[in-house]
């Protein structure tokens, strides 16, 4: 059994998360649908054996050839283990006993005995190589195959599905759960080989003497019974321990994620208590597992040994009856001794089945997840130049919470529209609808008059670039992050970086465009990351550019430079920009004012200012505040003067 060295062992379920995250959702209760624990536990308890064997069968179907190799190796090994016992018996009976009884032997007889013993050892090595390399190869191939399938599914499933599943559990589905599923594969061929071996052994026993065979026939089923009882008892305990491992990991992850909050509010002791309580729960669960295992192991040791003793007693009777010879008894006794170890392989497989089944269920949860985002077959429009955008009666709901209601507006080709509204109004949701990260519950989003759902995969991304509010930086070079799969020359990358006001700091990086950024690369400030994300959008020369408060971490002077650059270069682009600042709004030909998920007003800035009080409150807030302050100050001065 090889347990691979991993930073994150199979038991560590929830995994690292990227440094920043891109899944910013506007308001809405996320319904977290983790597979219901009770359900999983129930399933695991009822027929874990049958279901576990089903999973093993899947493995065999996927990798029949390599499985055949490893089972052959294992059977060879098993057969030779039995044969080895008989060889020892035969050597004792034909060479040792005669030699010692008669007081002489021949070199030939001794050499033959040695050669046979060595030959058996070499063949056993062959068996081991086949079995272990085959089993490992099979296990690793299955892991790789399912990791590919699971991650492929992640890429195919719509963002709304992602929203419903915690990041941690998605990471563990692709990693720990896949690993757990195929864990029993490592000892599986050994176990199958052992079964073959037991059959051979039984055959050999029967051939030797039917009465001695009865001992085997009593011991072998007992071994199976103990194994089955073990896996039944173990299953719920294992499931619980696994669940608690996940909880400990999730808790640690969240707590370390929020380390700054923990630190600044001095809540270390509270967090430690929270973690400690979970760690103790996990400890109790693991001790419960240990108690069962602690009983199983000695029992599995003792059974074949008791068998050996039984052989001696029965053998003595048979010897007296003249049915067998001393050599037969020795062989059979030896056979039971060597069987002790391989028989445990069966226990290893059965013992791992509960965990495997839980892992399989979780992996299947991803593979069979429905709710795909179907694409149409319309190609990207032939047209170049700016795109026209329309939202018609769009409604959107997060869980049960309506976020957008009957949103209708359009952005004519080449125009710039600012989307303005209070915090939590649904602006970010509009941008995700336009980039088709999610689909509306009702209504249509149209690009150049065509419902975006009719476009084929990739066609929308060819023309539309979204810069989200929170930026995601890939573990890649600056060039890789900006170009992101598009084949563009470096001068285009520099041009985009220049427009995003990012060229200066990129030039200052140790290796310029080749500097690694992202979690393990150079650390960038929030403003720098935003500018990189902006360059990523601009380098594509999109036909529709969607900016979701994409300069919030950039200071005013730099933002102004970015906006000036955009104004000069964005003539070929339609722009939808979420904005608070007047300068950004001033870029726009028109403003759409969104409040609590509805379009409350639309028109030029001046029109809205005169017509929509909410809009006026929002955009003149700073001036109002200043006026208030001046009024207060004047009053204070007046008071002082009076005094």
């Amino acid at each position: 059994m090889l347990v691979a060295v991993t930073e994150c062992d199979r038991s560590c379920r929830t995994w690292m998360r990227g440094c920043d995250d891109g899944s910013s959702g506007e308001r809405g209760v996320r319904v977290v649908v983790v597979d219901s624990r009770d359900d999983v536990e129930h399933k695991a308890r009822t027929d874990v054996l049958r279901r576990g064997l089903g999973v093993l069968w899947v493995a065999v179907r996927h990798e029949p050839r390599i499985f055949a190799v490893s089972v052959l190796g294992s059977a060879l090994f098993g057969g030779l283990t039995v044969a080895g016992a008989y060889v020892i018996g035969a050597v004792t009976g034909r060479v040792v006993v005669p030699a010692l009884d008669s007081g002489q032997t021949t070199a030939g007889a001794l050499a033959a005995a040695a050669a046979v013993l060595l030959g058996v050892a070499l063949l056993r090595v062959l068996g081991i190589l086949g079995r272990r390399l085959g089993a490992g190869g099979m296990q690793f191939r299955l892991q790789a195959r399912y990791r590919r399938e699971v991650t492929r599914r992640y890429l195919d499933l719509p963002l709304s599905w992602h929203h419903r599943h915690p990041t941690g559990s998605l990471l563990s589905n692709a990693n720990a759960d896949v690993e757990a599923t195929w864990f029993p594969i490592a000892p599986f061929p050994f176990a199958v080989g052992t079964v073959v071996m037991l059959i051979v052994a039984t055959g050999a026993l029967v051939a030797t003497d039917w009465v001695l065979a009865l001992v085997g026939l009593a011991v072998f089923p007992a071994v199976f019974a103990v194994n089955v009882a073990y896996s039944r008892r173990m299953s719920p305990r294992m499931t619980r321990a696994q669940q608690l491992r996940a909880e400990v990991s999730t808790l640690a992850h969240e707590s370390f994620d929020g380390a700054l909050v923990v630190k600044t509010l001095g809540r270390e002791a509270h967090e430690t208590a929270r973690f400690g309580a979970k760690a103790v729960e996990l400890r109790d669960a693991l001790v419960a597992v240990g108690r069962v295992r602690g009983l199983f192991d000695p029992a599995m040791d003792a059974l074949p040994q008791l068998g050996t003793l039984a052989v001696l007693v029965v053998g003595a009777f048979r010897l007296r009856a003249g049915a067998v010879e001393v050599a037969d008894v020795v062989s059979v006794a030896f056979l039971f001794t060597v069987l002790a170890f391989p028989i445990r392989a069966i226990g290893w497989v059965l013992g791992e089945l509960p965990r495997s089944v839980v892992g399989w269920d979780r992996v299947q949860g991803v593979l069979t997840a429905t709710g795909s985002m179907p694409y149409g077959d319309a190609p990207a429009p032939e047209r170049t130049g700016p795109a026209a955008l329309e939202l018609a009666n769009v409604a959107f709901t997060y869980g049960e919470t309506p976020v957008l209601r009957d949103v209708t507006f359009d952005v004519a080709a080449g125009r710039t529209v600012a989307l303005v509204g209070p915090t939590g109004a649904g602006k970010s949701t509009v941008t995700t609808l336009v980039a088709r990260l999610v689909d509306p519950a009702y209504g249509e989003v149209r690009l150049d008059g065509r419902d975006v759902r009719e476009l084929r995969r990739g066609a929308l991304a060819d023309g539309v670039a979204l810069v989200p509010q929170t930026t995601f930086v890939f573990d890649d070079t600056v060039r890789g992050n900006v170009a992101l799969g598009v084949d563009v020359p470096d001068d285009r990358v520099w041009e985009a970086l220049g427009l995003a006001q990012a060229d200066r700091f990129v030039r200052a990086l140790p290796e310029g465009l080749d500097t690694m950024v992202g979690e393990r690369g150079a650390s960038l400030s929030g403003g720098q990351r935003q500018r990189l994300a902006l360059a990523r959008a601009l380098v594509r020369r999109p036909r529709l550019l969607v900016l979701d408060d994409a300069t919030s971490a950039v200071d005013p002077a730099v933002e102004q430079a970015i906006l000036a650059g955009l104004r000069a270069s964005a003539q070929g682009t339609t722009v939808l920009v979420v904005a608070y600042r007047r300068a950004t709004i001033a870029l726009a030909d028109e403003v759409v004012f969104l409040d609590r998920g509805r379009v409350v007003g639309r028109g030029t800035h001046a029109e809205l200012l005169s017509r929509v009080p909410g809009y006026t409150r929002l955009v003149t807030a700073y001036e109002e505040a200043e006026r208030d302050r001046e009024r207060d100050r004047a009053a204070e001065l007046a008071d002082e003067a009076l005094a």
Partner: protein
Amino acid sequence: MSAPTTAGDPTANEPETTWRTFVRGIQLTPELRAGLGGTLLLALLATAGRVVVPIAVQQTVDHGLRGAHGPDLGLIATFVSIAAAILVGTAVSAFAMNVRLFRTSETALATLRTKAFRHVHDLSMLHQQSERRGSLVSRVTSDVDQISQFVQWGGVLLLVSLGQVLLATVIMLVYSWQLTLLVYVCFLPLVFAVRYFQRRLAVAYGTVRERVGDLLGAIAESVVGAPVIRAYGVTDRTARRLDSSIERYRTAQFAALRFSVLTFSVGEIVAGLANAGVVVVGVLLGLDGQLTVGELTGFLLLVALFVQPVQISTEVLNEAQNAIAGWRRVLGVLDTRPDVPDPGERGRDLPAGPLSVRFEHVHFAYPGGPEVLADVDLDIPAQTRVAVVGETGSGKTTFAKLLTRLMDPARGEVLLSGVPLRDVRFSSLRRRVVMVPQDGFLFDATVADNVRYGRADLSDEDIELAFTELGLADWLDGLPHGAATPVGERGESLSVGERQLVAIARAYVADPDLLVLDEATSAVDPATEVRLQRALDSLTRGRTTLAIAHRLSTAEAADEVIVVDAGRVVQRGPHAELRRQDGPYARLHASWVNQTRSD
């Protein structure tokens, strides 16, 4: 391990020997030794039981089966009953040993887990950030699991195996010293082979570890970066990267397996050699009258008893590489001294009442970086509201971090009401000084629970009242379940601006004497921001407030503005005054006005 970048880095400790790690590990987790004597005694009994069967076979063959008058049933019955009784005793001791071992080790490791968890929180912010989040998590999860696997499976198996080898050797010696010598000569080459393969194996495991890191990175990217991947249609690129890291991981796993299997195979061949040798030499010895048939047969069984633990030991030693590596990583965390330590008992409490701030010739640089703050020397009287402004990268956020002692200055000192910050007990500091960071991190709980994080004893009514006082009652009412609305993982069910609102409420209920706001409202709409600011102004009157902002609305409302440029304080004074001066502030403000006002 003083440089933050190496905290818990497995390679940083590599020179440390396996044995030293083991000893240090036991030192740090003394609970592992609890009841060790009893456990070892039980292990000894369990091991002793293993030689019962070979001896019983030998005795039975020599005296029972091959007795002068045919098989002696009475004698055999005696032998077998004694052996069976010992076997049962062995099994019972093994069970008792296992249970003790599991209980002791799991208890010890739960403590170690919790200790390491606390230690991660005690590390400075810089330390924490220099680590990948995931690797910190594995310090308290999988790395500890690896230790437990070693302690429960490997460690004991190694001990038992060693005991078995010793015992087998002793009995083998009793039967025949010549044959024993022969067996040892056969096994000698194995020792060298094992050493060689283990070195190769360690390298192979290193590759596996590295590639699993890449794999996890690629998976995390595909999950966390999902929106960008979709928005930019780069599914194929991502899939390619995933496939290649999955495949590279697989080949590394297989390469490591090869070495482990090779070691085992060598052992198997050696065992074959030993068996053959024993038969040949044994017969010759027997002819010489030095050995009976029973003794030779027993010896052959003993060789099997000898081979098995040796084989197991090589496997365990291979596995031990993992366990020890895990242990080393956990110790790496525990041995990292927090570079911003809590003075604890020796420290002082902050004096009661409003707090004043003093920076005394403060310099600061990130490890290996240029100076971010240079010679900052300033006083902020108690009860003033100060805004720190400056361009991106000017060093203004550093103020907040120094003031809340997330970091210590490289030179100079920060004092609160005259007390050097390094001398202030964390219990006092964290109660009196609260910072709201820009990233409004929320825990996966309800809005109310998150606010209670600032103060645990608040009722739901108190929390609603707090929101009302902050002018956010409308917003709270608009949530589907009010204060009971779950915020989701990291607060992601709320918009970025909404998360900031909750973070401010959380700090507000903590009722600090010094409130530090680091771009705390950067994603909130202007109207809400102004409302919030006004509320905070009246509510925090009487305390000291330091706000870092690039929205200059904050500066306009402050009593005083501090302008930072390239790590130095370049201007300071009330907004109205600075605005009139010809300086960086006037320019910053002009571009701000330009952006926010109608012309």
